């Protein structure tokens, strides 16, 4: 397959479209203008309080899940015929996978409201043609550079999107701190790419957590006597006093985090963050036991559970890794199995968010956006839809290029976007319909929706308007 793309003169200018987002397709180019109502409070438009960004690791074959109404070579598993009414995007049969709904345990989950993903595809929206670099001649199907773009927007980008978000919400956090409140920052579970930060942004690198709990972050549940605390303080004071004056900032920074740790330690030690404690105490209208039941025991499930509890403490965003989708071989067997896990996470979130009462009123569903992304799509050649090893690869073509990203949450349903797809591809050639979204615009949209200051990032890419 070749990566044929129409000359810009024959269709919408991709660059203009990026600046105008979806509305541009209908009404011509748009320049992003801050919403004046929200602008009084923040530089973005707001709309959500939390984003859960799930990274489908290894390069995800989007056509087998979220853009599935395409030829067999792109989606050998076929499109689902059992999608929720009103679904316009191409849900694949792999989204029907729900072995966790089987048996006695499955009946219990059904009783809690868990469904196959295809049963609520009308509550999800898909941007079908998200692209790292819409003006580039080819897709970036390379793990290293694709991931760098995914994490930072650029190859060798210095700042990860979660650092940008943390920087963008600094005013909110400072205001809360001034009022004596403790608000948690964004969190990165797993790898640190989204938490890179350099120069003035280095101080806003969000915490990176390996694992799914805070056991390693709680340093004492029993207070030490004052003399023992003094001894620790004196050790740092002595270190600072011996330093060259200009180096004391290093020690001061450490001492500062020690003091902050005291503030956070109560949260880290709270039962609410002990996602395996099987507690039946309901917080925000749901117990840890119920959440654990919904999400199961997978790593991603436990982290999704924890993410919801971090949102309780004001964290604006959490990202986690799920899967290992770099299936160059045996994808035919393994992808359906791997999808069971993410399907359960999506379904669990669908139930939990609608059930949970948000501290600011309404349900978490109304305040939260769940987004799935990956560093690139995947490609297989030939009619079978798999390579010679039963897997798929990633190159420079359109199958690798398009990241068909699903969005789920109250913002989607309340704006009538549930079931819609923006950016449609040709069934047999995956050619775009003229609507292409820069991935940086998607990231900037995250910041915009969170009311995070994004004025210093991605100057050539505007948040997507007209969608939300």
């Amino acid at each position, binding site marked *: 397959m070749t990566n044929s793309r129409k000359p810009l003169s024959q269709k919408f200018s991709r660059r203009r479209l990026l600046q105008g987002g979806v509305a541009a397709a209908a009404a011509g180019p748009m320049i992003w203008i801050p919403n004046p109502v929200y602008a009084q409070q923040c530089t973005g438009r707001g709309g959500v309080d939390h984003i859960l960004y799930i990274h489908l690791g290894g390069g995800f074959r989007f056509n087998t899940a979220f853009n599935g109404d395409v030829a067999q070579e792109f989606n050998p598993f076929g499109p689902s015929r059992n999608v929720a009414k009103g679904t316009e995007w191409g849900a694949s049969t792999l989204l029907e996978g729900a072995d966790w709904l089987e048996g006695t345990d499955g009946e219990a989950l059904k009783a809690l409201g868990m469904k196959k993903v295809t049963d609520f595809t009308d509550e999800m929206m898909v941007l079908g043609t998200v692209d790292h670099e819409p003006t580039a001649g080819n897709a970036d*199907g*390379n*793990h*290293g*550079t*694709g*991931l760098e773009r995914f994490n930072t927007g650029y190859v060798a980008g210095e700042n*990860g999107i979660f650092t940008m978000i943390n920087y963008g919400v600094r005013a909110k956090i400072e205001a809360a701190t001034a009022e004596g409140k403790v608000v948690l920052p964004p969190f990165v579970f*797993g*790898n*640190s790419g*989204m*938490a*890179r930060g350099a120069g003035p942004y280095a101080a806003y*690198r969000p*915490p*990176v*957590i*390996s*694992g799914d709990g805070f*056991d*390693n*972050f709680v*340093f*004492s549940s*029993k*207070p*030490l*006597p*004052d*003399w*023992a605390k*003094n*001894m*620790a303080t*004196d*050790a*740092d004071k*002595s*270190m600072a*006093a011996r*330093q*060259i*004056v*200009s*180096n004391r900032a*290093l*020690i001061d920074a*450490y*001492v500062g*985090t*020690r003091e*902050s*740790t005291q503030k*956070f330690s109560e949260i*880290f030690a709270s039962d609410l963050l002990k996602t395996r404690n099987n507690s039946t105490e309901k917080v925000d209208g749901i117990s840890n036991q119920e959440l654990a039941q919904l999400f199961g025991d997978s790593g991603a499930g436990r982290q999704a559970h924890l993410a919801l509890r971090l949102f309780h403490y004001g964290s604006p965003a959490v990202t986690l890794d799920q899967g290992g989708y770099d299936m*160059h*071989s045996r994808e035919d067997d393994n992808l359906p199995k791997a999808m069971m896990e993410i399907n359960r996470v999506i379904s669990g979130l669908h139930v939990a968010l609608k059930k949970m009462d948000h501290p600011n009123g309404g349900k978490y569903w109304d305040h939260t956006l769940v987004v799935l992304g990956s560093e690139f799509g995947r490609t297989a*050649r030939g009619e079978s839809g798999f390579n010679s090893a039963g*897997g798929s690869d990633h190159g420079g073509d359109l199958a690798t290029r398009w990241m068909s990203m699903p969005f789920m949450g109250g913002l989607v349903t309340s704006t009538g976007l549930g079931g819609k797809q923006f950016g449609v591809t040709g069934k047999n050639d995956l050619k775009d319909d003229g609507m292409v979204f820069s991935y940086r615009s998607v990231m900037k949209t995250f910041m915009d929706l969170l009311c995070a200051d994004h004025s210093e990032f991605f100057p050539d890419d505007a948040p997507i308007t007209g969608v939300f």
Partner: protein
Amino acid sequence: METKTTVLGKAGVISSCMMVFFTACGTDENLFNSEEPARGPASMLPSGSERVTDGKFKGGNDTLPNVAAAADGSAWNPELPIICDDNCRKACDSYAFENPVNKGMCSDLWGAGGTGTPIVAEEACRRLWVDTVGRFPTSSELDGCTSKPWGDVVKERIDSPEFVRLNRRAWADRLKYDTESVSVERIYDMDQIVAAAYQGRIPYDEFGTLISAHPVLTRRNATAGDRAEALFWTLLGRPPFGEERADVGRLYTLWDNNYYDHPQLGMRLPDAYIRYNCVDQDGNVDKATSGECTSVTFGYEQLILKPDARSKPDDRDKNSRLMWAGLLTANEWEKLQAPGRLMSQQFPFWENAVNVVLEQYLGYRLATSVPRVGEELVHYAMKYDGDIRAVHYAVLTSFVYRQSAFTGQDAKLRYTYGPVKQIDAEGWVDSMDGMTGHKLSKCDLRLNRPGDFLQSDSPAAHALVEDSEWTVNKDGDVDDAYKDLVRNLGGCPDNSQGGRFKIVSVLTTANQLNYATRLCDPAFEGDTDKRASSDRLLPKGVSAKEVLSTDLISQIYTHQMKQFYGRAPTADELTSAQTNGAECAAGRCSAEDFARPVCFALLSSSEMLFY
């Protein structure tokens, strides 16, 4: 396999496999050794005890000048530009420095009347240990260090396997080893090449040459331009200008990113292939397109390989032929290494090489503020035939490195006081473990995704993990305890998404406090099996139950200061210990009741984080 000698570059002499047509050099597809799975140019390296130099570098024991006697100290004013006048030059000539850093520094320090900060032996040893062993020294190691001439101590460290291991780790970070992007065999291969450079088996320009066409670089990057850019960053420490990127990229058009179904591992590995560009359908050089494989930035260089029976049609483009890089011959590897060979003959290559070493040990690029240091170091490296160990030796034995960082005063010029750096996450954890007798497993950066290999049905893939530095538990899973702890602190990077980071944040600090609490158990509420035994926290002969006295407070505090910080407490610190200890004693404390909080106070202090 029979070998012959090939000469690469002015300093590079290596032996390589006899080119055997149709046979991969140094490899045998039918054999897979899980202990030595490397596949690639490392098989062409000299395997014996031959070294570029004998490793006896000069300049390790320079006599430092008595500035007060040699120069007019009143001339020293760091607020003004430092000008080295005739007197300054005469003074510097008279010092007869052999160390190139000292020599380069003279006109900006001693010659101009400056002194820097006096050397404190224990402090310098502690710094050296972190930088060359990867952890803080034990008290017996410190005693050994302070009793020997500094040059001898540094030589011992550079000759040690720990020095090589730390530099292997540094290059794993720089090249971002990731088995998702690059074949594990190639990563092991590059690791061996790095080891060869830091054991002094190959000169540094040859090292650069080998990197330039190694699949860890070519396979990780998507396009010819990206590869050229990665090369500029790696060998010159800067991005290429636009025209450089395009031009040097022409020497990377032959590389293709593809996959290799490994017969023993039972896995499809990402690997490098050769795409036969710039040839016509008969395999001859195509004059019409040969310019696309020709670079002129560092001199005219055309890189075209001719296909033969080893190649096969590309299923994506029937007009193009591909060959798995595992079939490359020594002669072909050598041709492909043209970008690095050209670049390593440039002065900026060596400037970057010495800058990297200066930054590694000083934490800043001294040669930027004092260019003469860079020049002297480059000449020193040349004098030792490009043996990179010489540069490490020169920096580690320099006054700038050895001087104390602790004056409590202010200083205008960075080089007038010693380096202060944050210890790596691994170094912090390893030090804590070593000091308290705790033991965790390790990470193996060559195999950043051990789980992928354990999921394979192949016994060879399992053996690969078993033979790596990972610990596999009785259930057949990788022991993640160390990795999880260290990764939270920024080390043991999974290079797929982000590399190593050093940061002081609420969560890293909380993690450190948690770990110090676990090891010291200051509140006596932890797992007694996992905490440090009281024997380690108390001076010899002191019983855990002994009633705390004024004398015992001093003994315990001094013992732990020596144990953890490698130094005696200051008078102020002892006074503080006595004040706090008295409160403990008033509550009928035992020796252990006092020793555990002291352990926590010292191990959780910033002195364990910055060195």
